[in-house]
């Protein structure tokens, strides 16, 4: 399933308290756990580089992560939320996700459960509010341009797969970014988009996108996405410890810090109303 579609469905539950979690999931699916690969830079075309970059999305199958999500206003004022995320994909492609707010205190214990069928219909979403001691069903919401009021759009969180399908790619001169030798790709949308083009820096050694720039009307830089603190996990997969989306025009930032990540199987019982009710 297209990650953007997933995100759209998930975002329905939102509400300001919980929206950030979906941003995280989307970004994780875009950036994390990219498989290392061996590429031979000089001969590769832009399309081939994108193929390599696609890798494996975050938490496909089963896994969990603990993250800190920080939104920063134009004045530099930051708001931080810490979340625990569990995810699982069943054999029939039904996707289950559970988010639990750990901090701050006013939302701690709030849980969000979503079960998304492969056809995208009849997605079920529950929100558990500890103050009320019970769960509530949450309705779907119309797709919005801006993803839950953060610095991400649905297009951006749709991941590289969308770039492959929806953009024409062109390889530019190689560059060095953050000490890494990088391929530089220019991606031009095939259909109407709010961006005129996107530039992507791909770390040559590991085929990891370390920076993405989004240009708008007049070819002005509008936003940038930076990943940093890349390290290999116990399974040899690369994980960034931080993802930052900066809205250059608005002067705002969304920062995601991955505190822990695991691909260990999550028990089915986590994705039940019963588990939501447990403390």
């Amino acid at each position: 399933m297209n990650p953007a579609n997933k995100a759209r469905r998930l975002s329905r539950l939102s509400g300001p308290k919980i929206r950030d979690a979906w941003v995280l999931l989307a970004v994780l699916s875009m950036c994390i756990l990219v498989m290392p690969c061996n590429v031979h830079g000089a001969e590769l075309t832009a399309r081939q580089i994108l193929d390599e970059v696609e890798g494996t999305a975050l938490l496909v199958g089963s896994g969990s992560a603990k993250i800190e999500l920080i939104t920063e206003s134009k004045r530099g004022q930051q708001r931080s939320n810490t979340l625990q995320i569990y995810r699982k994909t069943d054999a029939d492609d039904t996707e289950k996700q559970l988010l639990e707010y750990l901090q701050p205190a006013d939302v701690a214990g709030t849980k969000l459960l979503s079960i998304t069928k492969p056809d995208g219909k009849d997605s079920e979403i529950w929100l558990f509010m500890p103050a009320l001691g019970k769960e509530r069903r949450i309705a779907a919401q119309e797709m919005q341009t801006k993803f839950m009021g953060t610095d991400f759009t649905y297009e951006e969180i749709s991941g590289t797969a969308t770039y492959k399908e929806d953009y024409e790619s062109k390889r530019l001169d190689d560059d060095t970014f953050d000490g890494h030798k990088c391929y530089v790709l220019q991606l031009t949308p095939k259909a109407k988009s709010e961006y005129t083009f996107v530039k992507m820096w791909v770390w040559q050694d590991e085929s990891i996108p370390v920076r993405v720039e989004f240009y708008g009307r007049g070819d002005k830089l509008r936003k940038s996405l930076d990943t940093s603190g890349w390290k290999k996990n116990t399974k040899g997969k690369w994980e960034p410890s931080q993802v930052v989306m900066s809205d250059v025009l608005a002067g705002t930032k969304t920062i995601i810090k991955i505190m822990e990540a695991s691909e260990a199987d999550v028990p089915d019982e986590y994705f039940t109303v019963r588990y939501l009710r447990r403390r």
Partner: protein
Amino acid sequence: MKSRRMLRFKSMISILICAVLALGLSSGVACGMELGPTGLSLSGEAEQTVNWFLTEGELSLGITRYKLSLDQDLRRAGAGIDGHAHVSVKGWYNHKASEGKWLELDEAYADIYHDLFDLRLGQQLVSWGTAYGFNPTSYVNPLPSMATLTQGGLTELTGLPVPAVYVSAYPSWKHMSADVGMVLVLNPRLQGVPLPEEYHAEILGGIGYGVQAGLQAPGAAEALAGAMLPLLPPEMSGIPGIEVQLAESIRNAEVRLTSPEFSAKPPNSFTDRLELAGRAGMNFGMWDLYLSGFRGWEDTPVLWVETVPSMEVVPAVPIPQLDVYMDIYPKAAYRKATALGAAASGTWGPYTFWGEGSYTWPDKVKELDAEGNIAMSTNDPYLRAVVGADRMFGSASEYYVMGQYMYNGSGSLLSPYRMPGEKAKAGHYLAAVGRATIHDDHQIELMNICNLRDKSGLIVPRYTYKVNPMLSAWIGTTFLLGEEATEFGNLSISKSVFAGAKVVW
């Protein structure tokens, strides 16, 4: 003077406790704190409100509240079982009413998670139902007061915890699963008469006035005299014209109040106090359906007044003088009831819908129907129901709207009683909430609840600023809709500006 000093002292102490909790414990703590290696977690909150009563022009401290909670994962603590333990204590002080509780147990329970069932044992809240605030199928925990609605609490109402055993199981077969829960309440939290003390006297005074007026009605005194005549001493009953004199004495009878208030005794025996509630739910596509039942005590007592005529004979010539008295006995009693209910919630497009209702058969209290008694409660069964919908919208779901219709077959939401002689009328209410959140820090909320029958209501706008993740502050006011002699118009807090601050850590 001494008592005033004492009140001021109590008031200061409560604020100090609140301040210590808010400032001392919250420093550097974003969300609770772990104590020791077992992961014992301590968290808390403190709140202070201020009210400015517009009609009285009086600015006063509102209520100081504070709460401390301890949580422990049982397996981490070495208990050898999956589970959780929770204890919370709280205190509050109402500065205007000069009353409060320094410290009381809030919730205290242990959860045990077994493969086949989950068990919660201890003082707890059992939150059933799908609606906001008004939950006809949430039988177990009484609500503290609907007056909290006036400060925008419609979506935050929670009941008072009770000692109980709650067993829940989640059987499943094929692609279907059910949610079954049984609650045994060991000691129901029966509430007193939910009326201010001055209302007791006002009601009883009104009844006294009504009795006196009733005796002046044509034929009323004569009828009563006919009934009382056999009670006269034999030597008097034969006196010519005595019945006429008795009727005249009855018209001039003195009405005497035997007690200034209604008070009810709770049931004594342990077994008699027990309550049982059950619920079974299933998921049907995008909808959840729950059926439930309850056998237990109503939260508040039924009220009635007994009027007993008495007579004193004063020897006089040519015929003795008769002094008649009408003694008023205010009576109150708790009663048991049986209720069946259903609740559903589901989604359709961007909307969430819910509906919930229960039908209650109270045990009959024969005094309510006894001739000569003045009853403020009835033995009639009643229906309570609610339907509503909400949705979020905006580019970041920052806007929220909710509407809910409430039907209360037993009458008013604010009082379960009707005035003597008043015809029993079901209550129809409409509640609406609109909320906008800007950058997570600023929240503007507009809450409205109105009584569709007497066209009264309240509009409560409230602005909340989240200073940081732990501290929020708010200011709001209440506007009265309709006349003052209406249900909401009678609330003293209905014309006030309120402000407050809360620290959560």
